[in-house]
């Protein structure tokens, strides 16, 4: 190539770059994938937010794309990323953080935090939610639709069993004692109403964390490279879960279907159920009896894992796009919007000052159960998340299910799960 041709190319390239950057300065388009995991008119709410944001920020347009369940959204985002066209912003499970980092698909937020307001904004979220959003001194996710596990109880069933309908069991021992009274058997010994259901077909590890946290044990380290499935405290927690069915006989034997647990509760087949706060609106609409919402019962300590989705920024955005996307995420997590999103969906508003807004105060005064999840956040821990997350999670789920169905002892099941987790994580040590 001659020197002259090179010059020509250089000039043409600069001109082209100037043109494209001029175009983006005028109009920035961002694609935004989001999942739906709870009931309610989610797309309508999101579209409303996006329209309001675009009105306040001319020059930025957001293409909000509903992408299915969390799992579907991850599959779509990662396959799009692998084919070179990732979304710009996506709401994905907070526990997918390590998977996304390992795929080199996402960029951290830290370099975007320049002003003091921006730095203060990052500190405005509940620390429990940030546990699943930060690793290696970097912030990879911003809390958006987050939840915890709570206990729902049927007040009529409590009254019928001679218990105080306004007081849920507060410890494991109380759960078992109350459970004996709540379980109803007919003359031939068949159970017509179980005391409690802790679902175990989906999110098995998550509900299990509701037990391990109360037993003061953590399942993994913050770096996501080590698990502690075979610790005595973990085995004890699993033994307690198994005993609810096998020894105390206050919970159905075998695994309990996640999807039909609320239905069992409505049908009065279970007097107490453990499930996500995301089901709050569903239960409020469909329970044909007065119900209460309580924190999970305590044992050595108290606690529940957090759950739900974070905002992630995919790589490949230009600086202008990143700045615009950052503006959008800040806009979506203001106290007012966090409060509105929480009220409309049942998710836990992600920052303390959202609970001081007038709208939220009114909502809580009308429906105090909504604040239980917030109060429980004090005791909340990170949801199980490691490198190669889904595979490690499956090892634990399989172990728990083996113990619940009686094919392995809790001790054997957890030792096997730990051995498998160690094998999977050996590449990340």
């Amino acid at each position: 190539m001659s020197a002259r041709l090179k010059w020509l190319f250089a000039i043409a390239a600069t001109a082209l770059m100037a043109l494209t950057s001029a175009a983006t300065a005028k109009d920035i388009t961002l694609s935004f994938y989001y999942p739906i995991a709870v009931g309610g008119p989610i797309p309508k709410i999101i579209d409303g937010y996006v329209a309001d944001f675009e009105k306040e920020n001319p020059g930025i347009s957001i293409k909000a794309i509903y992408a299915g369940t969390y799992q579907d959204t991850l599959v779509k985002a990662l396959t799009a990323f692998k084919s070179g066209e990732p979304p710009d912003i996506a709401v994905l499970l907070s526990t997918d953080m390590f998977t996304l980092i390992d795929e080199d698909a996402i960029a951290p937020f830290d370099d975007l935090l320049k002003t003091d307001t921006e730095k203060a904004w990052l500190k405005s979220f509940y620390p429990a939610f940030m546990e699943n959003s930060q690793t290696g001194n970097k912030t990879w996710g911003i809390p958006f639709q987050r939840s915890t596990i709570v206990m729902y109880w049927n007040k009529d069933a409590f009254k019928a069993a001679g218990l105080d309908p306004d007081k849920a069991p507060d410890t494991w021992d109380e759960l078992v004692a109350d459970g004996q009274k709540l379980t109803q058997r007919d003359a031939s010994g068949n159970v017509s109403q179980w005391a409690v259901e802790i679902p175990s077909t989906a999110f098995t590890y998550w509900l299990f964390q509701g037990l391990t946290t109360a037993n003061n044990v953590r399942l993994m380290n913050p770096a996501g490279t080590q698990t502690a499935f075979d610790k005595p405290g973990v085995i004890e927690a699993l033994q307690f879960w198994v005993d609810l069915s096998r020894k105390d006989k206050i919970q159905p034997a075998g695994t309990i279907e996640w999807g039909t647990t609320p239905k069992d509760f409505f049908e009065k087949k279970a007097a107490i159920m453990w499930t996500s706060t995301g089901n709050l609106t569903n239960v409020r609409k469909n329970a044909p009896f007065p119900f209460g919402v309580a924190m999970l019962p305590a044992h050595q300590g108290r606690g529940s894992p957090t759950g739900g989705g974070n905002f992630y920024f995919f790589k490949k955005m230009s600086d202008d796009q990143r700045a615009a996307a950052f503006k959008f995420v800040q806009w979506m997590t203001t106290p007012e919007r966090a409060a509105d999103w929480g009220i409309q969906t049942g998710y836990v508003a992600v920052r303390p000052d959202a609970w001081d807004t007038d709208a939220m105060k009114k909502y809580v005064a009308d429906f105090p159960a909504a604040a239980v999840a917030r109060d429980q956040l004090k005791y909340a821990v990170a949801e199980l998340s490691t490198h190669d997350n889904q595979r490690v999670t499956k090892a634990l789920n399989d172990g728990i299910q083996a113990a619940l169905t009686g094919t392995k002892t809790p001790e054997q099941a957890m030792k096997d799960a730990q051995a498998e987790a160690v094998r999977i994580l050996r590449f990340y040590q």
Partner: protein
Amino acid sequence: MMHGAEPAAAMSAAAAPPRPRLSTQFHGWLLLLPAAVLLVTFTHYPTVATIIDSFFSTPKGRRAAVFVGADNYQAMLGDPVFWRALANNIVYAASVIPLTIALALAMAIWVNGKIAGRPFLRLSFFTPTVLPMIAVANIWQFFYAPGYGLLDQLLGVFGTPAHNWLGDQSTALVCLIAVAVWKDAGFFMIFYLAALQQLSPQLAEAASIEGAGRWYCFRRVTFPLLMPTTLFVLINAIINSFRLIDHIVVMTQGGPDNTTALLLFYIYEVGFKFWDTAYAATLTVVLLVFLAMVALGQFLILDRRIHYQ
């Protein structure tokens, strides 16, 4: 005329069959092209790419794929979940296939006879086929719900205690087998029904004059004549038993503890949940080899023993 502008017309006009010339061959290939492109793009290329991928590591982030030889295959042999899924799939296929075919044939013979409400019966047998599997699985999940599900309510009449059908390792796979049989039997019934109506009634008459009983007539006359249909149905049933996993995704997610994990479901998990695409390719190769062997066996062995009219 032989050198005319339209070779095709020239060929048909020629008395003796001429040698196919280059342009004719070109025409032929051109006509095959659309089908060939589709086959290559969606069948042959993915197959070859899968086999190649199974000898490489999974590309992750900045780590590109490297050639690892038979590592993936070795890992597979040591993977207990793979063996579990394979064993489950064999049990599943070995139950679903004969049950579906037997039920389809029985239903076809029944609705082929002169009985009251025949159109209604045919319709109701066929209905499961037109429902999407996802919807079917969601309905059946509530049939199996412990306590208030249809199954427990029916059994409750006889005083049987409630059972956690999908949550018990000893019953979960059986429950899924029942769904699959229910879903496919009506579809295969249609083929048997069509075949039964093609059979000449004289054969049955001749047999009865010879003094053959109904069972003997079915065994020695009807069933052998239905063999071409049976082969077709058998191939489809085998493919379905390895291909249809929608109900597993909805009903059990492979649980409890992999009791209901079938091979394709496990491939989906490895590929799209664990993102271990290389290992998923390895598992896919096993599935391909398995199905290829079955297909070869069918066409080479069974086909010879079937009487086509």
